[in-house]
């Protein structure tokens, strides 16, 4: 491959070489240098400079050189030595007599991004009718009004599905070398490389993995390994990324730039929280692109996902941090303490992840029982028992619950007996505090209801569990048994035989005879 770079001409005034420069000369020299620098930079963009190539005024020499090969004889054949005219060639005219003396030297630039061989293309010039001006000229312009070849010109022949130079389906590597093989580019030029159209799409950052080797080669034109390692936690282990190679210029560009982790669309799916384990097991590399192990152990503190976690990378110091997940604490009940996965109430609070929905208060029991979510995957076993272990916890209920629990108990906002045994837990406290029955009905129970005796049957059927938190069974049997006053407590539809069939001794507690024969 020809090492074809830019071809800047360094113009040096003869007077400047012969005389000590005065201020005017100095200004001219500086100006000339600036022009040369500007031309160099303009050329470095990879686009043709209108009105001439480099600093050489081709068009002014149009009548002097009938053929391009007069000066660039070596280009069609790939001979670097004769690809550019020598200074001596110029001196044939610019000898100080016929024309002013000029001095120039060809500075061969290093390899740029362009993958181009004049020799290879030169062989086709005659056979296809193309010539130098096919790429370096333009229709309707003088023959010597040359410019750098434009990408669109390349696409005129290289019609590999591309609609334009920066189209997302373009095969960049056809015309470009990998960035790591283009040492002539400075960091600034790399930073200024144009962005393909695809990179502007909203979901590009979330799904840009090259699907084919051809696509991966396209990435390599503008990117080095450091480009990917800025965000990808598993960059070191991914063949596609490792194939890019390292590049110090890119490393300098990436230094200090924060990682970006857009949320893939499927993360918003209905079943993602339940099904992401399956996805992870199927393609853990996809997870590892954004997630280091700590981001998963934010939730997965149990052993359920340990096999997948072991395959995820650890975030390395100075490398991509990975998605930093923090759990959003939830309140399982209004005014109850905040809870995080670990069961702590000290709540690492930055809120990114909310595993459970807004209605978790009412549904977590169902989800746990149905196995919709693996509780043990994120919660230590004590997390459940911290709330559901009865007396062993003070976390389940809100502050001052002891004074507010009566209404909750009657309304059964939650089922008290899920955790508490009414006979023991409730009644022992009610008895100790003086609320519970002590087996006598001669003191003013239900003080505020003088007609309580007439109401209590209905109250009992509506809130019998609350009755049992204060009353022992014999309190009721004083009236409602054959050994008492014989008042029938059974409601309509009561099926004695059904009760008897499950536990006949239950009947005998009140009936000293067989039910129905009293």
């Amino acid at each position, binding site marked *: 491959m020809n090492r074809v770079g830019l071809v800047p001409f360094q113009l040096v005034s003869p007077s400047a070489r012969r005389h000590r420069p005065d201020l005017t000369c100095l200004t001219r020299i500086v100006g000339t240098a600036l022009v040369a620098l500007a031309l160099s930079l303009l050329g470095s963009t990879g686009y043709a400079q209108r009105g001439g190539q480099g600093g050489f005024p081709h068009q002014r020499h149009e009548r002097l050189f009938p053929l391009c090969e007069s000066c660039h004889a070596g280009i069609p054949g790939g001979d670097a030595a004769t690809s550019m005219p020598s200074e001596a060639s110029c001196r044939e005219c610019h000898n100080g007599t016929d024309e002013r003396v000029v001095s120039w030297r060809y500075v061969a630039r290093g390899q740029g991004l362009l993958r181009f061989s004049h020799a290879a293309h030169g062989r086709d010039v005659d056979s296809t009718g193309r010539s130098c001006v096919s790429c370096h000229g333009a229709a309707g312009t003088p023959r010597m009004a040359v410019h750098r070849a434009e990408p669109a010109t390349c696409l005129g022949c290289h019609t590999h599905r591309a609609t334009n130079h920066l189209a997302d389906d373009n095969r960049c590597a056809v015309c470009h070398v990998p960035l790591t093989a283009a040492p002539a580019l400075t960091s600034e030029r790399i930073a200024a490389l144009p962005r393909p159209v695809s990179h502007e799409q909203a979901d590009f950052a979330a799904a840009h993995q090259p699907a084919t080797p051809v696509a991966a080669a396209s990435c390599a034109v503008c990117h080095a390994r450091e480009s990917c390692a800025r965000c990808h936690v598993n960059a070191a282990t991914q063949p596609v990324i490792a194939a890019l190679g390292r590049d110090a210029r890119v490393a300098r560009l990436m230094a200090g730039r924060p990682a970006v982790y857009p949320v893939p669309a499927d993360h918003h799916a209905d079943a993602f929280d339940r099904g992401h384990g399956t996805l992870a097991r199927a393609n853990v590399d996809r997870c590892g692109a954004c997630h280091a192990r700590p981001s998963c152990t934010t939730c997965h503190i149990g052993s359920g996902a340990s096999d997948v976690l072991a395959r995820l990378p650890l975030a390395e110091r100075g490398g991509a941090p990975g998605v930093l997940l923090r759990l959003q604490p939830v309140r399982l009940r209004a005014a109850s303490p905040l809870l995080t996965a670990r069961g702590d109430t*000290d709540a690492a609070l930055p*809120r990114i992840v909310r595993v459970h929905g807004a209605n978790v208060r009412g549904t977590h029991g169902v989800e746990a*029982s149905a196995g919709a979510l693996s509780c043990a995957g994120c919660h230590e076993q004590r997390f459940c028992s911290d709330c559901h272990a009865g*007396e062993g916890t003070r976390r389940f209920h809100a502050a*001052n619950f002891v004074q507010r629990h009566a209404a909750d108990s009657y309304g059964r906002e939650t089922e008290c007996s899920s*955790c508490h045994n009414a006979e023991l*837990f409730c009644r022992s406290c009610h008895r100790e505090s003086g609320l519970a029955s002590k087996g006598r009905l001669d003191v003013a129970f239900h003080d505020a209801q003088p007609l309580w005796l007439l109401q209590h049957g209905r109250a009992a059927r509506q809130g019998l569990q609350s009755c049992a938190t204060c009353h*022992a069974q014999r309190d009721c049997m004083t009236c409602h048994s054959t050994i008492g006053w014989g008042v029938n*407590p059974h409601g309509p539809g009561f099926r004695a035989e059904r009760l008897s069939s499950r536990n006949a001794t239950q009947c005998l507690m009140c009936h000293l005879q067989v039910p129905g024969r009293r």
Partner: protein
Amino acid sequence: MTRLRVVAALGIAGLLPVTSARAQGVRITGVTSMQAVDLRPLVDDSVPVGEASGTGPYRARADGRLVRCIEGDSYCRFRSSGERELATPLVQDLRAVAWGLGEGISIHAHVRARSSLGSSGLSWPRADDSFDAIEVWLEIDRGATRARLGRQWATGGLGVYNYDGGSLLLRRGRVRIEAFGGRSLVAGLNEPVTGPELGSLDDLPPDENGWLLGLAASTPLGTRGAAGATWQRVIRADHAGLYSERIGADASWRAFGASADFSVAWDVSAREVNEARLQVARPLSSGLTASVEARRHRPFFEAWTIWGVFSPVAFDEARATLAWRSASGALGLDARGGRRRYDETSGGLESTPLKDDGWRAGAGAEWLPDERWLFHADYDVDIGFGASRSDVVAGARWMPDESRWLGVAATALQHIYEFRVGTGRVNGLRLEGGTRIGADARLVVDAALHAHHQSGSGSSPDWSQRRFSLRLEWTVGRDPGTRVTRSAP
């Protein structure tokens, strides 16, 4: 029984060191919690008949207080608040896990000791039960099979079921089938049903132990749902009958952005639904989530009690919630409400009607302006049969870092109507704070003052309370699967 507990305690105490010596790892978590609760319990009181006005069994004192007067008795009786007493329960929990005794073999234990720091006559519930082995089991977990043997405390769709026995779990993918059985214990208490604990509080305790048999299964429903069911039967040891037989079923489904959760608990022996819920929730636009729920509840009673023969009725309830959270998650608001109605009781007199419906409503807000501050406020009102209340809680929490926090909350609670306590208002202030002590210990302290103001006619009990609690949590050892000890958060 005491001898049995001592033997169990010694067994566990001896087991753990031996286990830690032979196992690859042991983790022990301890929680020491101490409370001090100052209140005025109710005591029996009386006044001479002559000091009560009116006639009949219920008369009034000069201050309006109702008293019960028995014909022929020279005193009318009532209950009033006695002297202040201080309860100071001390509870020590120890949880231990030892693993690495062989492939998939581990030992789990959770024991609890109780005591009291003071000598007050006010006894905290179960304070006299000085030791409990809440869970102690040996587990063998190998691939698709997991077996446990020992005392187990399990939770499921039917609530807590604890027993001394064994369980065998089979896994096939995400399908799980478990069989379990053993001696049934009092739910949530880990005591045999024939033990003295029940006997001391109920004069008709069960006369036979119960044997628990059960099956549980759960399976995914595609990728969007899951369902599970549990069947349990508790049989009298003499096979003369059942103490209970229940089935619980749960299902959860998500589709089109919405979720549906259904659960039902069915009392097989009584052929009654104890609890049935269907909740449907769906995120709306702009951070809004709405949910509606239909529910039917009827209390469950075990068959060793007579409570079920009183024909308790169910109530039906409809509930709805609307929640909103800002895109940043910093601000959350929600509003909730529900209405319930009881079935016909066919009891009592028409002339003395009783409220047979109820409703509840509430609203809450939560604001986290940054990582250090949390502000929250909730208001709830629940008007119903038996007891009603409205209360508001507002507070703030300051977390200068991830290891410390300080919080304050003010509460105002109104007992609007209650069968036993009456109408009143309770204002409270609560301070709480916590800090980590090193990587593996945490200290949490809170103190609260609740002032009760009785309203309505007549004086009645004073339920003002002062509360203080201290909780120390610590862990030694390491987590399974790690090579280092637990690290600081």
